[in-house]
C-alpha cells in the first residue's frame, strides 16, 4: 500500500468546504501534492541500495514543471503574512514570483539575502506552523503554497548552477571576530560579519561544521551531504576560517578569545541532554536520541548502525520523531514512541506525527516513564499513565510495561555550561541584552543556547544574522 501524507491541505485554518479533508487528515490518510510513501518497513534491508532507499529524500525535490505550477498559485500578497511568519523575514512573494517567471537564481538570492542557510531551512523548517500556516491560500481550495519546497527548488538550482557567490564584502574593517560553534547560528553570524567587512574565525568542537544540520536532523531530510555543501557555499564569501575540534572549556578558553579577538559570538547550541531521572538509566541499550541520530548521519552505510529489535523512544519533539522513524527504517521490529502528554501538546508538528504513524511507529500518549528493568542491559520499561489534574500532569497509579532492548531518550537538551564562567545564565541559558550581548562585554550569543532560543534552525540563523549586525555596531563604536 502506498499511503500519501502531506501538509498542502490546511490544517490550521480549514474552511468548511474542506471539512472532509479534515477527517482524513486526522487519520493521516489524505492525499496531497506532498508525497511521503508509506514504506513496507519489515525487517532489515539486505543490500546497501535497499537501505539507502529508506533514507532517501523525504520530499523529493520539485522539477521545473512542479515548481512552475506551485509558484503560480502564489497570490503575490502585499505585506505578506508568510514573510511576517518567517523568523528570517524572507521576502517570500518576491522569491516565488521569480521562480514563476523563470528566474530561479534571482529567487535564490532573495532567499539567501535574509537566510544564508535557506537551503537547510527549506528542508527542515516546520513550515506548517510557520510561513505556510500564514499563507492566505489556506482559505482557498488547494491549500497553502508549498513555500518550503519552492525555497528548496530555488536554492538548489542556484547551488547546483555553480554560480559565483551571490554576496560581496564591504571593505575590510581590519577586525576579526571569534565565533564559537559552526552550527546555524555561528555560520550565519560569520557570513554576515564577512559581508559587513569583518573577518571571522569559527571554532568548532566537532570534526565537521554544520552543527545539528550535519549531526542532528533525520538523514532523509538532509540527503546528499547537503549540510557540507551548504557550508562550502557559505565559506565562498571569504574572510571566514574554521578551526575544528576546538571545544569551549576544554582546549578553548573564553578569556583567550576575548583577549585575542575584537569580539566573540557564542553559538554553541545545547551540548547536553536531559535525563529521565530514573534509576538504571546507565544500563546498556539506553542512549540519547541525539547520539543515535548523529551515528546514523555519519554512517556512510546505514546498515552499520546498530538498532534494537524493540525500541522505545521517549519524548514528544521533532527529535523524538526523527529517532523513532529512523529506528524503524533501520529495521527495528517494533518502535514505540512514548510521550507524557497528548498529541495536541506534542512539540512535533502534525506532519511529523503523521510521518511517525506512516512509518509504523506505535505512539503512546499520556505515559510517564517510571522504571527501567533489566540486568545490566535494558529489557523493558515501565510507564505510569498520566492525566492533567488542574493543569498539572499527575500519574494515575496505573502502569504498564513495554519490552525494549534499546531506549532512546529525547526529552530535551540543555546548555553545557563548561567554559562559560563569568557569564550570567537564566534557567540554564545565556542571558542577552537587546543587542545580543551577554553579560560579558564584547561577548555576543545566539541560537539554542540563549534564553529566547526557540529550538529552530531558522531562529538560530536569524539570531546569528542579527547578532552580526549588533557586533558590527559594537565594533564601529570601538
Amino acid at each position: 500500500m502506498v499511503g500519501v501524507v502531506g501538509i498542502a491541505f490546511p490544517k490550521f485554518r480549514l474552511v468548511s468546504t474542506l471539512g472532509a479533508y479534515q477527517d482524513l487528515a486526522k487519520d493521516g490518510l489524505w492525499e496531497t501534492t506532498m508525497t511521503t510513501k508509506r514504506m513496507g518497513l519489515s525487517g532489515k534491508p539486505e543490500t546497501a541500495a535497499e537501505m539507502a532507499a529508506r533514507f532517501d529524500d523525504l520530499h523529493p525535490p520539485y522539477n521545473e514543471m512542479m515548481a512552475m505550477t506551485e509558484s503560480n498559485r502564489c497570490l503575490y500578497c502585499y505585506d505578506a503574512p508568510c514573510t511576517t511568519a518567517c523568523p528570517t523575514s524572507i521576502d517570500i512573494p518576491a522569491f516565488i514570483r521569480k521562480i514563476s517567471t523563470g528566474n530561479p537564481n534571482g529567487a535564490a538570492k532573495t532567499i539567501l539575502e535574509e537566510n544564508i542557510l535557506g537551503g537547510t531551512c527549506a528542508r527542515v523548517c516546520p513550515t506548517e506552523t510557520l510561513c505556510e500556516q500564514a499563507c492566505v491560500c489556506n482559505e482557498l481550495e488547494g491549500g497553502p503554497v508549498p513555500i518550503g519546497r519552492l525555497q528548496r527548488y530555488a536554492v538548489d538550482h542556484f547551488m547546483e548552477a555553480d554560480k559565483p557567490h551571490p554576496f560581496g564584502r564591504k571593505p575590510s574593517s581590519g577586525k576579526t571576530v571569534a565565533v564559537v560553534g559552526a552550527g546555524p547560528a555561528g555560520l550565519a553570524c560569520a557570513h554576515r560579519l564577512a559581508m559587513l567587512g569583518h573577518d571571522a574565525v569559527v571554532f568548532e568542537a566537532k570534526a565537521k561544521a554544520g552543527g545539528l544540520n550535519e549531526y542532528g536532523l533525520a538523514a532523509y531530510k538532509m540527503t546528499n551531504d547537503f549540510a557540507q555543501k551548504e557550508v562550502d557555499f557559505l565559506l565562498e564569501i571569504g574572510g571566514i576560517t574554521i578551526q575544528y575540534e576546538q571545544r569551549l572549556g576544554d582546549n578553548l578558553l573564553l578569556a583567550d578569545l576575548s583577549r585575542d579577538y575584537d569580539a566573540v559570538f557564542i553559538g554553541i547550541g545545547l551540548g547536553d541532554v536531559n535525563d529521565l531521572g530514573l534509576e538504571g538509566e546507565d544500563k546498556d541499550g539506553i542512549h540519547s536520541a541525539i547520539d543515535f541520530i548523529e551515528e546514523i548521519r555519519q554512517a556512510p552505510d546505514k546498515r552499520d548502525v546498530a538498532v534494537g529489535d524493540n525500541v522505545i523512544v521517549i519524548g514528544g519533539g521533532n527529535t523524538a520523531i526523527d529517532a523513532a522513524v529512523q529506528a524503524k527504517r533501520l529495521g527495528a521490529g517494533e518502535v514505540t514512541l512514548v510521550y507524557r502528554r497528548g498529541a495536541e501538546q506534542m512539540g512535533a508538528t502534525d506532519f511529523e506525527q503523521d510521518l511517525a504513524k506512516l512509518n509504523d511507529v506505535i505512539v503512546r500518549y499520556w505515559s510517564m516513564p517510571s522504571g527501567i528493568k533489566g540486568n545490566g542491559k535494558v529489557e523493558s520499561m515501565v510507564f505510569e499513565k498520566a492525566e492533567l489534574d488542574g493543569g498539572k500532569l499527575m500519574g494515575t497509579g496505573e502502569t504498564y510495561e513495554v519490552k525494549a532492548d534499546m531506549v532512546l531518550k529525547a526529552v530535551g537538551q540543555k546548555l553545557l555550561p563548561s567554559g562559560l564562567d563569568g557569564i550570567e545564565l537564566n534557567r540554564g541559558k545565556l542571558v542577552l541584552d537587546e543587542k545580543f550581548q551577554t553579560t560579558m562585554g564584547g561577548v555576543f550569543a545566539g541560537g539554542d543556547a540563549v534564553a529566547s532560543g526557540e529550538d529552530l534552525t531558522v531562529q538560530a540563523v536569524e539570531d546569528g544574522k542579527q547578532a552580526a549586525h549588533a557586533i558590527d555596531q559594537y565594533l564601529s563604536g570601538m
Partner: protein
Amino acid sequence: MADLKCTIAGIESINPFWLASAPPTDKKYNVVRAFEAGWGGVVWKTLGIDPPVINVSSRYGVHHDHKRRVMGINNIELITDRPLEVNLQEIREVREEWPDRVIIGSIMAPVEKHYWQDLARQVADAGVHGLELNLGCPHGMCERGMGSAIGQVPEMVEQVTRWVKEAVDIPVFTKLTPNITNILWSAEAAYKGGADAVSLINTVNSIISVDLDQMAPTPTVDGVGTHGGYCGSAVKPIALNMVAEIAKSPDTGNMHISGIGGITDWKDAVEFMTLGSNAVQVCTAAMVYGFRIVEDLIDGMSDWMDEKGYTSVAEFTGAAVPQVKDWNELNMNYDIKAVIDPDQCIECGRCHIACEDTSHQAILMKTREDGGKLFEVVDDECVGCNLCLHVCPVEGCISMKEVSAGKPALTWPEHPLNPMKQAAE
C-alpha cells in the same frame, strides 16, 4: 433544451457553431469527425488555384498563461496545400453524407477577375451552401498579393466581392482582416460589393515571442522567423469590438455577421451573438481541445437560453447592440464605490497595493485587534474604477455599490465643465 437553429445569409444551420476555415476543416476526415461531434457547419480550409502551396515547418507559436493554458496561437501556415480537385471531391462526398450540415467554401485568389470567378464557380459547383472570401491572412499569402493585401484596401474588397457575387448565386461571406485602422471601411466595401455577410475576424498580425537563444521570432524556421496570424481567446476582445461596430453602423447594419475570434466556450459564443453575430466560427479552441468542445457550446447556450426564457437564438442576436454607446453618451453622474466584504477577505493586500500604487489611494490597510488585517475603502477617494475588484483573487469579495441613485443623467457634451459646451453656449 432550447432550439439552437439559426439562419445566416439565408443558410439554415442546426446550430450556430461552425468551424472556421483552418486546419480543423482541412479535409474530409476532420470534417466528418467534426460533424459526428455535433458541429453545425464548417468553412472548408481556404482553397486556391493549383498548384497548391507548400508549407514550412515549424508553423505555430503559442502565448501561454501562467498555468500553461493556451491564450493564443500564432501561425504562419498558408492556405490548403492539397490539390483543388481533391478538396472538391471530398466536399461533394461530405455534402451527400451529411445533408443537414453546412459547408461553406473558403476561397482565395490573386486580384484578377477570372481567377476569382473561375474558382468561385468550381467550388459552388461542388455543392457548398455558400462561399467565404478569404481577404484576411496577414502572413505569407499577402506577400503574393492575396489575403490581407486585398482585405486592407477597401476598393479591392468591394471589387472582389462584386466579381464573386456576379459569378455565383449562392450566399457570399466576405471575411475581414482586423489588421486595418477602421473595420467599417472594409465592412462597408463588402456591403457595397454585395456581400450577404461578413465573417470576422481573421488573424491578427503578430510576433508571438522571441526565442532568446536563437535571437529570432517564434515559431522559428531554420533559425529565423516571420510575423504570423494571432488567434485564440486573447483576440476575443478585439473581435467583439469589431463585430459590434459593424452591427451598430447604419451603413452595414443589415448585413449578416459570422462572428469569429477566440470563441472557446458557450458564453463567448453568446456574447458574439448578442453583439450582432448571426452565427459563430471557432478555430483555436478546437485546435487546442479537439472537436468535443462543441458539446459545451451546445448545452451551455441552450441551458442559458432556457434560464433566460429565450426560445430561439434570433431573440438574443444583437440584444446588446443598443447598449454599445460612444463614450460621449455615458452618464457622468453615475457613481459607484468599492465595497470589501471582510468575511470573504483573505487578507492578501492585493487591492490595497493596486489602489495605493496605481489608482486613487482609496483602500486603507489597517490592523485588526486580533492581529489580522482589515482593508477599508475611503469612499471620498474611490472613483469606482473597478481595479481592486479585478485584482482580488476571491471572486465576489469586492463588489461595487451605486451611490448616485436619484441623480439625473448627465453626459460629457452636457457637462458644465466641458469647455466645448461653454463655447457653444
